[in-house]
């Protein structure tokens, strides 16, 4: 569960980066039949502190060894390359689109899920989308994060499968609700193994389980080109280990300026996570405060470059900071991310 939380934190960072997109409405179903999509290659720098997530997309996010089990993690930094994409095919007659790709909101959660699904325009009722989420590249976590200083930890895959339902532009108003379900499965969950914890206490640390997340976003145009999008996200990390299971409440506010050629988005969030039961290693309930912010600038079509018939290329730069302040130092998490790249849409 803790690892999930860490994953969530890490994800938050990425989410922040993608937050502008995150707060946006679903893309409308194209008017014409055919393929559409985007690719958003980028490079960047990430500095990350976590004792729980081992690596993501091949980038090391924490050290094999811990310095101490009762202190905050050290930071790891790395250059990163991300190539999120989406590919869709539209049936114009039925206002239906099939799609496959990376959901940026998942990327933010360090969950490199792919989604395959269908989007349906239902006229005045809005736009609905349903998709199946699966891990194309599973995140790596530690089999047993809690080992003595200078002992190596072993990685294991963290897979997630689930689904997402989104209803946007509900009855024509700029309101979106969505529900996401995931089943989290670690190949080898060995939390508490090093300490030789009694079985019932090991069970409290089990990070396998389900995650349910509900979200509501309202997009509010308060001036020409300026939009605010407050959001509330409730997540139930219904993990098998009660010390890892949590209720997470996040408030998020996104501001966007949609000018030409500049688009600017900024996003901040604050949240809390309350855990169900006492942590058997640290003898207290974990409680987290979570906050972060991000800003992204898109520069539209500077030179009119295109790729394979795409719309003109956009450049973007983005920065994000996320911190999870846990009452148990070991679980603190911090991420700093700076990225830049290009985006092509078809």
């Amino acid at each position, binding site marked *: 569960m803790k690892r999930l939380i860490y994953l969530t934190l890490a994800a938050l960072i990425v989410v922040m980066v993608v937050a502008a997109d995150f707060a946006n409405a679903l893309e409308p179903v194209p008017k014409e039949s055919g393929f559409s999509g985007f690719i958003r290659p980028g490079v960047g720098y990430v500095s990350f502190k976590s004792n729980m997530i081992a690596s993501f997309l091949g980038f090391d996010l924490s050290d094999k060894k811990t310095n101490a*089990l009762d202190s905050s993690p050290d930071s790891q930094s790395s250059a990163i390359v991300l190539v999120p994409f989406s590919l869709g095919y539209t049936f114009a007659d039925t206002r239906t689109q099939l799609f496959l790709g990376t959901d940026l909101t998942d990327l933010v959660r360090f969950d490199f899920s792919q989604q395959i699904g269908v989007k349906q325009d239902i006229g005045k009722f809005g736009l609905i989308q349903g998709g199946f989420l699966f891990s194309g590249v599973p995140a790596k976590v530690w089999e047993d994060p809690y080992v*003595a*200083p200078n002992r190596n930890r072993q990685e294991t895959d963290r897979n997630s499968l689930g689904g997402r339902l989104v209803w946007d532009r509900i009855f024509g108003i700029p309101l979106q609700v969505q529900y996401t379900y995931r089943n989290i499965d670690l190949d080898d969950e060995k939390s508490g193994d090093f*300490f030789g914890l*009694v079985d019932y*206490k090991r069970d409290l640390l089990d990070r396998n389980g389900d995650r349910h997340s509900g979200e*509501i976003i309202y997009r509010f145009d308060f001036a020409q080109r300026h939009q605010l999008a407050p959001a509330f996200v409730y997540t139930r990390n219904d993990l098998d280990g009660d010390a890892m299971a949590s209720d997470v409440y996040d*408030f998020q506010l996104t501001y966007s300026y949609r000018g030409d050629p500049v688009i600017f988005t900024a996003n901040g969030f604050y949240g*809390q996570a309350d855990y169900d039961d006492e942590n058997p290693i640290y*003898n207290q309930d974990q409680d987290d405060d979570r906050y972060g912010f991000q800003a992204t600038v898109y520069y539209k079509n500077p030179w009119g470059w295109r790729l394979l018939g795409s719309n003109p290329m956009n450049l973007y730069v983005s920065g994000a900071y996320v911190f999870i302040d846990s009452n148990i130092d070991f679980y603190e998490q911090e991420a700093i991310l700076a990225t830049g790249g290009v985006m092509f849409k078809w």
Partner: protein
Amino acid sequence: MDRDGLLKILVLMSMLLLLSCDNSSSSSSRGGPPAGTPIILSADPAINDSSAAVGNITVTFDKAMNAGSAASFVVYGSQSGKLSGTYLEGGSPQTLAFDPDQDFKPGEQIEVILTGSLTATDGRSFWPFVYRFRAESQSQPAPGTFIAQPALTSLAGAFALASGDWDGNGDLDLAVAIPGANKVVILNNDGAGNFTVGQTIEGQAGARALVGGDWDGDGDLDLAVANSNSSTLNILVNDGTGSLTVGFTFSGLFDPYGLAAGDWNGDGYLDLAVANFWGGDWLSILQNNGSGIFVAIKLIWDQTGPSTLIAGDWDNDGNLDLAAANWIGDWVDVLKNFGGGDFEVTQEISDRLATTGLAAGDWNGDGDMDLAFSNAYNHTADVVTNNGTGIFTVTQTFPGQTNSNAVISGDWDGDRDLDLAVANPGASNVVILDNDGTGSFSISIASTITGQSGASGLAAGDWDGDGDLDLAVANTGASGVVVLLNQSP
């Protein structure tokens, strides 16, 4: 949606967040015995008795009890293992008694465990209760002066000792930890205090602490070894003849320096606690399943270089508590056991300097367990008094204990109160502190034992069978192990 609608949504979100901010935590269950549970009115020998006469153990309850058994009325001797005997009705329906098959050894610590399987005749189950007392010196008075026997120099580098009757022949043997040689050596006693090297148990990497206990409850004394180099705890199982082999290894440790044994949860099995030294900085509370297999039931953080542990019931609630000397942190933590091995630090006795040795006993005869510390870097030994609730105060400090590394208690002079001995490697001596019976100690110059090069570990027992308490010293220097017999000069 109009702006009012949006405002309502935001208000609703805010309320949900506020509701989510309830920081109430679920604490572990720490309830006491339910109403109507049988309670102990008295015990003979008394709880925490420093000089208990050899004989039956009798416990009187507030209501009539069903007969005790080996599972419900469990008695361990620190030098003997689990004691067998006869369970008696102690003269009234409210009284249960245990008549051990063998006498307690002089100065032996006896642990009595009344488990939850004891029942009253009204069907009520007993709430587990664990208490200890110390067997009397059978020579009253005793000389209180010590004559060194020839040093066992082949054991140079000895760091820690444990005393016990491993081979079950009635006399006390010694176990010696030699960390530099990665071994534990059993010294066999011929009954007159003459020790010879018996079994050598190799592969104990950095063996630094020893504690005897009957981990598998088979009636013979086993041994536990903290191996600092391999960060393991080895359980050495006795086959009944004194031959010890590794029966279980617990590896979830980091540089273990200190051990303590006792039944933390009142289930009738001896458990262990381990101090994980600097870099580890935590205590591991281990629970025994009754066959010498241990699992961790609690980890205790915020320690800084914990090196030594000692157990005792500081608040007389029937749960064995702990004290942990933090060698690097320069303090001693007092840990209360809320039952079931649920320990929590309740007092920090600070401003010590490299506390390395701990001893426990009722120094002033008030029925409460007190403490003594040895502080290596300010060259002192402290006498620390318990107010009866588990709150301790330093009442005496003895300077001149050069690099004091260990302290042990025993009734050296046979006056029925507990005295102290302090091992001072910096001065190559062992200093005897004599108790006047009120908890006021004084140094007996005549009983300062010199020639202990690198004195690091102490053990007490009646090596020569004359009824008084003798000493043994583990020396990291060339002296190796020196046996000190309690004799007149």
